[in-house]
């Protein structure tokens, strides 16, 4: 099953029908998540890679093969790109059985080998025994597996051509239990694949669980790429912070180093210790974010005596139980009408510490989690 190692490199630009300004790279064996809200152009980017859409400008290269190069007038048909595609609604052919759907992607093999190969692929996605079923007789999760088997079969039949696997929101049409199961299976399966894999999703958690790297797309523009953990905790600017759902977005001023030589952020009359300085000078105005997991609640029965990291006390303005977790909004003391901090604790922790609306609580802002960004005026207004 060894396919030659070839990375995918994509640059796309167009104005209509969907504006695109997108660059992405995906190494062999890497799973790249293309993340963005609906309508951000993720699917269009995927279709450009597959050859189902032709952008007005751009290049798509897979290894040494050029699939698209508008300047050189190259635009290969989808048939001539070795692309395994799992469509959002799977697009199984309704008149063909599960086995024949997979065999369709194996047409380059001698006719005698196709059926056996197709059965093998179905077995790999745990569909043994369902070969003769038609798509309409299969559950959503089973249909997704057939689609995955078909895509894999396409990318692996001829192994000396560079290939990519493209997944267009493959988990969006199944229930949550099935989704978890399929996601785990993909995580297992991908370890055996040595081709670039591009996963389109609007689900940040999915990207975090499955992807090695992610590209954040908004209005067709690729804004930031990197490991999901990094993009989601250290966004490049306030707009990206909003897109990855970081609500704790504030303004502050970079202060001088403290007694230990650590960088300090001045915020609402407080001096917060910051572990990482991406290159700001003293006196710079900045936006800063802290992910909810960077905020710790102090125990009410054992108040810390000031030695805790970046202690902040305030009044709880909102407290919502969301099953096993409770979301708390805390307005810091001496607040000058600014936004509260939002974070989550396990519900039993909230109960034991008697967190309720109106109560006073103390928290720690982990210096490691505070992320400074270039100040932007528009940062505040966009908050939803």
């Amino acid at each position: 099953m060894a396919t030659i190692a070839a990375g995918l490199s994509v640059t796309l630009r167009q104005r209509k029908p969907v504006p695109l300004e997108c660059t992405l790279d995906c190494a062999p064996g890497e799973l790249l998540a293309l993340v963005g809200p609906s309508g951000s152009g993720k699917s269009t980017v995927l279709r450009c890679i597959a050859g189902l859409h032709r952008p007005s400008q751009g290049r798509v290269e897979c290894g040494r093969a050029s699939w698209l190069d508008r300047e050189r007038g190259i635009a290969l048909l989808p048939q001539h790109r070795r692309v395994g595609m799992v469509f959002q609604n799977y697009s199984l052919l309704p008149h063909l059985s599960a086995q024949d759907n997979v065999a369709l992607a194996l047409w380059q093999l001698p006719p005698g080998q196709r059926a056996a190969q197709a059965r093998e692929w179905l077995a790999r996605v745990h569909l043994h025994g369902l070969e003769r079923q038609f798509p309409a007789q299969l559950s959503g999760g089973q249909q997704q597996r057939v689609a995955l088997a078909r895509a894999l079969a396409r990318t692996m039949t001829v192994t000396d051509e560079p290939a990519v696997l493209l997944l267009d929101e493959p988990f969006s049409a199944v229930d949550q239990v099935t989704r978890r199961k399929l996601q785990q299976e993909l995580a297992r399966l991908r370890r055996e694949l040595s081709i670039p894999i591009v996963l389109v999703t609007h689900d940040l958690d999915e990207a975090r669980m499955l992807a090695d790297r992610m590209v954040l797309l908004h209005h067709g523009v690729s804004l930031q790429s990197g490991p999901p953990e990094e993009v989601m905790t250290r966004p490049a600017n306030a707009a990206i912070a909003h897109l990855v759902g970081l609500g704790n977005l504030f303004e502050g001023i970079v202060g001088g180093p403290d007694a230990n030589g650590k960088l300090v952020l001045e915020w609402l009359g407080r001096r917060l210790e910051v572990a990482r300085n991406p290159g700001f000078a003293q006196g710079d105005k900045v936006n800063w974010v802290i992910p909810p997991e960077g905020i710790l609640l102090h125990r009410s029965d054992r108040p810390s005596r000031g030695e805790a990291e970046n202690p902040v006390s305030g009044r709880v303005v909102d407290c919502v139980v969301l099953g096993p977790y409770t979301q708390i909004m805390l307005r810091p003391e001496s607040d000058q009408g600014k936004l509260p901090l939002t974070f989550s604790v396990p519900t039993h922790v909230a109960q034991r510490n008697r967190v309720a609306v109106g109560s006073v609580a103390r928290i720690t802002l982990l210096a490691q989690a505070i992320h400074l960004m270039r100040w932007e005026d528009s940062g505040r207004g966009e908050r939803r």
Partner: protein
Amino acid sequence: MDWPALTLSLQLAAATTLLLLPLAILLARPLAWSRFAGKGLVEALVALPLVLPPTVLGFYLLLALGEHSAPGRLYHALTGRTLVFSFDGLLLASLVFNLPFAVQPIQRAFDAIPRGSREAAWCCGLSAWRTLWRVELPLAWPGLLSAIVLTFAHTLGEFGVVLMVGGNIAGETRTVAISIYDRVQSFDESGAAAMSALLVAISFAAIGTLNVLTRRIGRDGHDRV
């Protein structure tokens, strides 16, 4: 019973269906899937034989295929035969007046094929030709079947255009429909009745077969999308 007329009708219907089917597929695909300038005009032209009185259509075909027309002269130069008042001309006219009966059901069937089905085939590496045979035609099968039955049955029954273009030459252009008219004119009511009953039976059988076949396709889940 005018057996030669019935044979001629069946020959004409079979030839029309056989020739028109690929032509209709060729025409219906772009009408279903592409957007191009003048598409509305083409659709209107295809539908025209539905609303035009057969005599009007027949009149224009007579002009277009006649001895002084370009197609008529070309055909005469090539074969030494005339197009009008011959089986060949009748076949040509039959292709024209059956156009909507073949194109429209096929166009609707292609229209109903989800774009994703074709794209999935392309992403499996299937060429346009393979996609036509493995995906498009099997999925459009109910529409193709409708087109076949409608064209066949309609050719058997067409009267006005046949009379205008072909006249009434036994063994060459006298179809069953013309023959029935002849019998009535010559007060042979029993002959007309027998042939009419036969036409009713054939048409009924055709529609019945169509219904059974389409329903079976639906039951197998073949046309579900």
